[in-house]
């Protein structure tokens, strides 16, 4: 680069600032236009993706309401589905009955954090649906948690065993080796994806222990809102 070695002509800082500001303004204009142009479509796709996941984990739901989990253990309805991990989505069927609650959870997998969403039905006290939202598990091995049919069969009806007053989970969900499932609350694991399937069991165990009692405590709220 020969030009770099030659001394550049002296110019005032005023011109530099003007040039930078002008370039900046031009760029800002481009960005704003692009943002405005694509925003509706992006929002639509995002909402669609989440909705698809929720519908998938709560079979039979037709409408939904979003609740935020408050620090004091109560639920509060929110209108805007902001990106917030402590949201639960209540799904209602055509008649307005509570069909299930979708809960997001995440935890460490083999490669990176696994994000999942699962549906819980307070009436039957069962997990009724499950879907991996995000995972970077090894292709061909750990990513079986997303597609292995035998593993996904687990989540069609997975009972959460609660204590008598429904204030805590009696038996935490735990993943066991494939084919070794004996207890109702055990998760039948995957051969060749031991660590990833155990991670899913662990995420579900932690999340249900925390959330399911809260859901039962706030059940009237969840059900009443539907009738309004």
């Amino acid at each position, binding site marked *: 680069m020969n030009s770099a070695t030659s001394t550049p002509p002296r110019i005032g800082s005023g011109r530099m600032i003007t040039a930078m500001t002008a370039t900046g303004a031009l760029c800002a204009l481009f960005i704003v236009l692009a943002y405005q142009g694509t925003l509706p479509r992006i929002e639509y796709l995002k909402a669609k993706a989440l909705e698809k996941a929720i519908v998938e984990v709560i079979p039979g739901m037709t409408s939904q309401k979003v609740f935020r989990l408050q620090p004091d253990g109560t639920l509060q309805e929110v209108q805007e589905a902001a990106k917030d991990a402590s949201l639960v989505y209540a799904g209602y069927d055509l008649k307005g009955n509570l069909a299930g609650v979708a809960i997001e959870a995440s935890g460490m997998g*083999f490669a990176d954090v696994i994000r999942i969403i699962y549906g819980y039905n307070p009436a039957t006290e069962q997990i009724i649906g499950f879907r991996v939202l995000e995972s970077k598990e*090894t292709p*061909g*091995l750990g990513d079986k948690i997303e597609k292995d049919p035998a593993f996904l069969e687990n989540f069609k009806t997975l009972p959460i065993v609660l204590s008598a007053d429904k204030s805590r989970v009696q038996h935490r969900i735990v993943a066991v*080796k494939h084919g070794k499932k004996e207890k109702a609350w055990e998760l039948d694991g995957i*051969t*060749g994806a*031991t*660590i990833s399937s*155990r991670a899913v069991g662990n995420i579900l165990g932690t999340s249900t222990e925390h959330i399911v009692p809260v859901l039962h405590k706030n059940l009237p709220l969840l059900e009443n809102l539907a009738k309004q």
Partner: protein
Amino acid sequence: MFQKTLHISTSPHVVRGIGTDDIMRNVVWAMAPTAGYAIWVFGLSALLMLLTATAACVLTEHLLARMSGKESTISDWSAVITGALLALTLPPGFPLWMTFLGGVVAIGLGKFAFGGLGYNVFNPALVGRAFLQAAFPVAITTWHKAFAPERFLSVTASTLTFPFTEPAAVDAFSGATPLAAFKFEHAITPAYDLALGLIPGSTGETCAVLIALGGLYLIARGMMDWRIPVSILAAVGVFSSILHLADAEAYPSPVFMWLSGGLMLGAVFMATDMVASPVTPLGVWVYGTLIGVLVVVIRIWGGLPEGVMYAILLGNAVSPHLDKLVIPRVYGTSRTYKTKAT
């Protein structure tokens, strides 16, 4: 043998009179009992695998040497060792086409990409094994039962898988190795079974006693740096003893750690790779200790049940730096004297 002409060469000037091929041949002898036992335990499949891996390595070495315009270096036996070592680290019943591919990668990528024997940064057999582990994670963790009754009459179905196709679904057995059993089930295998190799595992890593005998032979002949296996085993022993004493429930005993998995095979035949390990005695001690500690760390806290392979590869990677760290002070200079980088 007296030459009148003055022979000018770079160091070393004092030679011992044994060549690379002498050492390598002796390493092959030292491995023979382990390989033989592997064939006895796992039968025809193990034999075919040993032959395939060795053939792949020797063939690749020959072709690559020819292609790069050098003289073929297969007569120094080092490719045979790479092939045999590779086969010994693979599970019995591993498809032969994958074994062959592993051999090609071991020599091509692990050795010739760096310039051939004497220039390889990593132990070539472990490079081949690491490639296979990442490429075919299911096949490489499918273990087979030791002492199957029909092992000399028939070959495990998965061994003869057609090239580039998936091995048939696990037929006989997919038992957990002792390490996996400990990691996932918290089950301890008796030390007696471990020492004699009455356990599922890779072809050559099951019988700790025979591996140790091979190592002793090489040490006695002065063809192996005894500090490497000693420091690795000592580090594993000390580190796992501390953990075991702290919580005997959660952490296995040092004996279990020594005898299970590929530690013996790795410490004796892999980590001692003359090219990929440090040269200075102090460097070797650091190298061995590092590998030993890494093995325990990976086994106890890592995602994988076994970590000898990665521990040794990491040790290989740092060994040139270890030599640099412990470089002796040049007489008459201060400690900060900088040697010119070559």
